[in-house]
């Protein structure tokens, strides 16, 4: 059994168990700390105001990021999150195939799959001829069409790696400035994410060599590290994706928009 076999056939149940334990632990803490008590009468606002408030609660940090920290917006939000890890993790066609192997309903997302490479989409845009084919499509056959010039594993992985690299650099500078909010865990988390992306990119391009042993090792490392991330997710800052972001913004909406009646 090599590392790829271990990653695909052995590790998953342990990963799920670690995640479930961590998630339960973190959620139970919230439940045990909760105390019931009388609350204030909410300021009455219309349903429209509350809906607008909900949308703006999620949008305001993005607007402020564009206004106050455009470099962070581009690298952190756009490159790392929106164009980087989110579509890569959930929509890369190889990932959809892998997730559907473990959890068959995931295959429903197959029509939205984004391809690994940009070769065929580049040809769609750039080649002076159309392929000879009896089928209906040209070079690309996904729902994204020529957009795959951009929406593909190669480009998105590079963007995500640049985004992570920026974040690591930013944290190094902050540490050098003596800011104490940067923790060693931040470097571990970002380093882990960067390594996963790098090994995924290398596996996709059969790097550093095309022989099967190397390929299986590189892909195996990519998957094992991704499984490590999932297992550690409830104990690291990655928890924000599962819980922190949603709970935080919904609580803010309840606190400011529902209870206190802020209408913006």
């Amino acid at each position, binding site marked *: 059994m090599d590392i790829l076999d271990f990653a695909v056939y052995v590790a998953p149940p342990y990963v799920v168990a670690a995640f479930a334990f961590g998630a339960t632990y973190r959620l139970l803490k919230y439940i045990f700390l909760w105390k019931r008590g009388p609350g204030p009468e909410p300021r009455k606002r219309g349903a429209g105001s509350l809906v607008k408030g909900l949308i703006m609660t999620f949008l*305001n940090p993005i607007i402020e990021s564009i206004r106050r920290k455009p470099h962070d917006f581009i690298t952190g939000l756009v490159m790392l999150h929106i164009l980087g890890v989110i579509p890569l993790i959930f929509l890369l066609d190889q990932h959809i195939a892998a997730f559907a192997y473990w959890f068959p309903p995931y295959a429903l997302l197959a029509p939205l799959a984004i391809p690994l490479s940009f070769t065929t989409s580049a040809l769609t845009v750039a080649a002076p001829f159309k392929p000879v084919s009896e089928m209906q499509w040209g070079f690309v056959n996904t729902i994204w069409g020529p957009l795959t010039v951009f929406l593909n594993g190669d480009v998105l992985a590079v963007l995500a790696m640049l985004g992570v690299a920026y974040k690591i650099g930013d944290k190094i500078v902050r540490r050098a400035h003596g800011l104490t909010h940067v923790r060693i865990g931040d470097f571990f988390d970002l380093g882990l994410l960067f390594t996963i992306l790098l090994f995924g990119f290398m596996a996709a391009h059969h790097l550093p060599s095309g022989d099967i042993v190397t390929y299986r090792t590189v892909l195996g490392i990519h998957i094992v590290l991704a499984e490590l991330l999932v297992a550690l997710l409830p104990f690291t800052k990655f928890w924000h994706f599962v819980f922190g972001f949603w709970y935080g913004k919904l609580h803010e909406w309840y606190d400011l928009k529902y209870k206190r009646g802020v209408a913006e």
Partner: protein
Amino acid sequence: MNGVNWETYDEALVKEAAKSVVGHIDPVMMHYIENCVSCAACETACPYYAVGEEYGPVNKAENLRKLVRSEVAILPRIFPWLFHSHVPKDAEELNKWAEMAYRCTNCGLCYVTCPFGIHSGEMIKLVRGFLTKTGRVPTVLKAMIDMEVSGTYSGIKGFMDLWQSVLKEAEKAIGKELPLDKKGAEYVYLPSLAEAMITPEAIVSSIKILDKLGLNWTMPSDPMSIRAPVGALAGDGEAAAAVVKRIYNYLKEIGPRYVVMSDGGYPYTTYRFDLPRIVGEKPPFKVVHFVELILELVEAGKAKIIQGDEEVTWHSPCKMGRFAGLIEEPAKLLSMASKNFRKLESHGLFSRCCGGGNSIACIVLPTMQFLGKLTGTTMQVSDEEMNFLKKLEHDMYIASKGKIDEIRKSKAKIVASACVGCIHTIRLSSRVHGLDVSVVNIVEVLADKIEKA
């Protein structure tokens, strides 16, 4: 008056204080502590970021995280260097923590800017509570808390003379005796001693409005507090609760339908939103600011406002705007009161902070000197604390510059606001930054323009 000792370090006291802070953690605070990804999106929103990047909310709030990790988490207690978990190790570090904690106005700009809805100001409030328990609390703030809890402020001649002179002024303005401590009144007006000190005209104007509108109202004959609950500013929840409960009992004895406030700072949000939690029951009255009362009467056709032409703008206090939802209401009233009303550039949810809230403007040297003069006492502070206060004042003027620039840009001659702290800060800071502007409570703008319909 003897000052607080800022030179010593008592390890047992520090550990005890850290334990007590952990006892204040609820699920929301747990979210604030645990779910920060350290992205620092909050920092440029903070008025004190202009002073230095170490004063970004994420960095200031990290001290609470260090403290909590050192108390409750298993691995961080075994490997503190790996998880950044520790309490201050000596007097110097305690003072550094105090410096950071008193660079926060708890204005909430970090809260609405954070992608995860983390309110760093509330975390820093807990750090202040920790510091207070270790003895690191500004002398003047400690004195105000002690006086407010014990009620001894009412024995200080300077305070009471001032209070009586404001009431006399109000009586003169309405031409009749004030209906003081009247049981069964529908409205109780609840001004504080701080208003008598900083915005006495606001008390007079509020009384004029209540009288003009012909409401069945009353007010306490003596000030119920310095500016309740002052204890909250030092993170002293017990002191805050003791004062709020005392005032609540007074209000229940009067039995009003409404409690009306002219101070739209933290006293308003405390009574409007925190009162049920503090007293453990739903109050039998509604708490409203004058802005709400007047607007409701105007919209119901029971009152009208005569429009003037003053060049007036509105500074939204964080507690009244971001934390109480009264953002457009004051602007609406001011636009009725003057055809030359203009909004500030940052008007709205992201209204720029004045830079002096959360006790800052009330503990700096000019305020200490003012209080000393009023009470005929001198507050002795240690050299260490004096350095802290001098630097704090210097930094406050940097933090408030953005607001002053915004007011300057509006070309308004009058800045209306509603928070004693904001008004005091903008007055101090506008002088330093060379802006000639009159800073008043909104009730002062409205008092002469309002009429019963």
